[in-house]
């Protein structure tokens, strides 16, 4: 099996502050989805990204926020094991970001022999 990375992107939702119940429900949705991938033995690793970020540009300018000039931000990623890209896309089905107005970008991970 090969490794693929799924990148979760969505438009930032301004000052949205979820209630503890909404947070709980969101955690369950993500964990159930990831657990389903892990139950197939196809889980690699995952990280959720926070809301603090800075961007360094080539001219040395540092700007605040990861979303200075983009419409969407990356909310996190997961690395999965799949037979091929179609198999990996199948795993992306049910990803909670899809129900939050976002989308999943599935990419193959290049193996570089040094």
């Amino acid at each position, binding site marked *: 099996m090969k490794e693929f990375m799924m990148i979760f992107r969505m438009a930032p939702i301004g000052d949205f502050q979820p209630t503890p119940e909404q947070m709980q429900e969101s955690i369950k949705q993500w964990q159930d989805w990831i657990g389903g991938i892990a*139950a197939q033995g196809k889980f690699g690793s995952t990280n959720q990204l926070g809301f603090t970020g800075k961007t360094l540009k080539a001219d040395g300018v540092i700007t605040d926020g990861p979303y200075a000039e983009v419409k969407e931000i990356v909310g996190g990623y997961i690395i999965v094991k799949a037979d091929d890209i179609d198999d990996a896309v199948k795993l992306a089905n049910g990803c909670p970001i899809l129900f939050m107005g976002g989308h999943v970008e599935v990419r193959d991970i290049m193996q570089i022999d040094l």
Partner: protein
Amino acid sequence: MEHTELLIPHLFRTEFRKIVSVLSKLFGLAYIEIAEDITSDTFLLAAETWGKKGLPENPTAWLYTVAKNKTKDYLKRNQLFNKKIVEEIKYTSTSVEEIEIDLSNKNIIDSQLQMMFAICHPSIPIEAQIGFSLRILCGFGIDEIADAFLSNKETINKRLFRAKEKLREEKLNMEWPTINEFDKRCQAVLTTLYLLFNEGYYSASQNRSLRKDLCVEAMRLTYSLTENEKTNTPNVNALLALMCFHSSRFEARTNYEGEMILYHEQDEMLWNKELIQKGELYLHKSAVGNNITKFHIEAAIAYWHTQTNKNKEKWEKILQLYNVLLQIEYSPMAALNRTYALAKADNYEKAINEALKLKLENNHLYFALLGELYVKIDKQKAMENFAIAIEKAKTLQDKALLKKKLAEITL
């Protein structure tokens, strides 16, 4: 006379391992066979002497004294061994009389823990580690080990022989691992104890008292790790908690005929409350530091299984713990159990959908799970899946249980 006959097997179980560990530490692990021979001879002499003359006042002290004398005799008689070994024995004296054979409580405990680390060395195949642990750390007879593994004496003897060869090849000694190596080696010990426990808990052997003995021994060894400052880690406490929770259902999970009783059909009154409380204590002790291990998660899952409430909250907790466990380490059993928890916490349709993705077609339990999930939704499919499960099941016990399940479905 009758008393002696009962006492000797008991003392063999409790004292054999202690004397062997102390003598092996004295001689060096490469000579473990000599330590075993001397200890066996000691018990042989005890059986003869006590049978004729009656029990000594303190049988354990008698055994220790005889073992010490036999060791000194052995060293004296075997000049070659004497020259070779006495140098290896880290004593400055070369005279046999001056060699101290330390059967103090402290040295017994230390020697046994160090023996545990030596036996559970990664270079020794895991099934040999378990067999070897049962022999050297638990004082089990070869017959009993063969029975537990559903194997025969020859196979077990070969396995132990190869393990001893490995000890020599790898030049393993009975010292504590270095600080750098400690975590890894401790993990290897815990894995062996975990498997030893599972061997007893899930073994197909019909011998229920033997299986219980395996669990008790695994718990005793794990407990001994909590008694030592060096080895009393959060991980060890989590493993002990896990064992306590599981073994609390030991009486409830089989009936008088030795047939398996499934979790949701068990009489909860038979769950051992004392063990559940002990488990809670160790689970509490395991909750220090930042390191969450597989044993922590498994212990937490086992904790929720000891709760008698039937509400969704319990199954939701179990589902979330399985989600985490599977991210730490995949196993087919965890995948199946996670799917069952999903059915209970959410709904059966969702669980069927997830189950079909698992692709565990070689595992009879996979079809048993599908059968179980389909019962309320599609009886025809439930029956088909149970039929495949029966065909794939390896033991008669499993087949019988599944046939009962199949028979309970009424169209």
